[in-house]
């Protein structure tokens, strides 16, 4: 008898303790970076910047974690959810599988996934970007900047999200000058290509040998190698996700920025203000979710004419006058 009571008491204490612990951590949002790591000068760093900005402005602390391998994905989310962190922000489409297995087990926790749509689970918000619109702008800039008439595009591997970058880029280049040739070379065949800057360098050098003088990458961490090769060879690179103009000042024409930071900031803010919605948000040029980066580092490369043209194109895309085809709709590209 007394034994049962003891066990019961212990269990009760355990529950109380767990609730207490959950209570202390309850308010903290969590951010788990994708494979590229926190300071990848690209996608993940942008997410970090958003979280950091929210913390600076509101004093709301957050927990973050870098995973060291795919095996940790599910475990990482599950642990944050079990500890009561809310909302949990997952930048990157690679999180989808892990999210699908964890989210249904924690219906009271809100999740945000960026770059892919998970709309069949109730407690998930998805944010995707119209990368094709931003890529259209940098494609137009590339076509205006090229002297050889040949420009390059380097995706990490053949994948529809990355093709959407390339397709927008080609459309933008063709809009300025249909004669411009776009060379496309993938670095690898799978996700590991995102971590292969050596391969990025080799692919970029081979494109430069073939005459490309402006090269746009959609290769995450491997893109550092692409921009390096472009800078070393005296041609122009185009950055992606974060503003990468500062990596090689004067040798990065522009960057196609994806405001991952805004998505993260908004998620934290909405949750804090009880305005969280589990919906699918699509951020394009009109929402200022994508765009071309202009700053001191590329000021010398961008002429007034280029700037004006970009502004005109931006207005035309927002008004619907120019419709940029999204590769993901039909898995094909019109140009």
């Amino acid at each position, binding site marked *: 008898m007394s034994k049962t009571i003891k066990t019961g008491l212990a269990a009760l204490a355990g529950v109380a303790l767990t609730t207490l612990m959950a209570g202390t951590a309850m308010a903290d949002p969590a951010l788990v*970076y994708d*494979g*590229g*790591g*926190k*300071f*990848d*000068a690209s996608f*993940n760093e942008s997410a970090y910047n958003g979280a950091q900005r929210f913390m600076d402005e509101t004093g709301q602390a957050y927990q973050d974690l*870098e995973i*060291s*391998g795919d095996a940790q994905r599910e475990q990482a989310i599950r642990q944050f959810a079990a500890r009561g962190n809310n909302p949990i922000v997952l930048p990157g489409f690679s999180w989808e599988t892990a999210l699908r297995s964890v989210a249904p087990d924690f219906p009271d926790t809100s999740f945000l996934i960026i770059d892919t749509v998970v709309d069949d689970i109730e407690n998930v918000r998805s944010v995707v970007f119209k990368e094709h619109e931003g890529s259209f702008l940098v494609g137009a800039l590339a076509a205006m900047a090229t002297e050889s008439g040949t420009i390059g595009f380097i995706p990490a591997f*053949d994948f529809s999200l990355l093709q959407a970058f390339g397709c927008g880029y080609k459309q933008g280049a063709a809009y300025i000058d249909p004669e411009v040739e776009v*060379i*496309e*070379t*993938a670095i*690898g*065949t799978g996700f*590991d290509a995102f*971590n*292969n*800057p*050596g*391969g990025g*360098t*080799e*692919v970029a*050098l*081979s494109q430069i*040998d073939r005459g490309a003088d402006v090269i746009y990458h959609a290769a995450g*961490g*491997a893109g*550092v*190698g692409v921009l*390096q090769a472009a800078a070393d060879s005296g041609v122009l690179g185009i950055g992606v996700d974060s503003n990468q103009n500062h*990596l090689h000042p004067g040798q990065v024409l522009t960057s196609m920025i994806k405001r991952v930071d805004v998505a993260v900031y908004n998620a934290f803010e909405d949750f804090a203000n009880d305005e969280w919605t589990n919906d699918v948000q699509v951020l394009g040029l009109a929402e200022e979710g994508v765009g071309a980066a202009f700053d001191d580092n590329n000021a010398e490369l961008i002429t007034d004419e280029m700037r004006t043209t970009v502004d005109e194109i931006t207005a035309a895309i927002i008004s619907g006058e120019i419709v940029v085809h999204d590769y993901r709709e039909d898995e094909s590209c019109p140009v």
Partner: protein
Amino acid sequence: MEDIISILITTIRVSTPLILACLAGLYSERAGIVDIGLEGKLLGSAFGAAVVASVTGNVWLGLLAGIGVSMMFSAVHGLASINFRGNQIISGVALNFLASGLTVFLGAAWFGRGGNTPPLTGDARFYGIRLPFAQEVSGVPIIGPIYSGLLSGHTILTYLAFLAVPLTAWVLWRTRFGLRLRAVGENPKALDTAGMSVSWLRYKALMITAVLVGMGGAYLSTAQAASFSREMSSGRGYIALAALIFAKWKPYPALGACLLFGFLEAMQYRLQGVDLPLIGRVPTQAMQALPYVLTILLLAGFVGRAIAPKAAGQPYVKER
């Protein structure tokens, strides 16, 4: 012509780490130590070189650090397989795992870039060296592009790698040290009977291995790329071992094998999306599978009998 030159330039660049690693394996296997840990040593020294180069801003210190890391790995391998007479394959595989985990762990802890190191700039990396008169002869037909394009403009490590080939052939076949080193891999008992230390000779071979593979690793992170990224050796150590078997443990054939593997990798980068005469446009995936398919074909069909040094893989026991 230009296309061929450009493929050959890429071939030289991507062959360099293979040549260094392959010669490294040649020394240790000729001395009777199988070194499957080449992969881990490449990765570890690439990491060491990038970290020290990025912290000190001096690429030469980075190179030393790279060699230092592979020395440490070699010391562990030597201790396990020479002194403790452990299984050399197991020790090598353990080193590979250690390198794979430790580099990401330390990299993430120190730099917070998911295991990568910050990009190297200025004096923190190796640049191509322009050979004398490269500019002047570049206009001369045939010789011009070959000299100024193909031979000039590589980093010091590439030139050292190519110089290491005749040097290795000379050391192993023309010096007393080389004779003993080969003997210790074929018949250690004979050397022991002649009063020489089998262990010490094998340690010396492992040290040479460490210097060469350390240069190969440093090349990956400070010359070819400008930072370390996780798993950046991506199997080059194993390819170097395959090349070593393919070359039947001889230096000049080893150079040829490494250049062949490098050429296949270069083709993969260069021929994507290009219309080939007769064949048309080859799918990217087929292009990327080519090096591996050919590796298997070559190893399976065209090598003939590859006979390893007799005592390779066997720990030496003085008395039974």
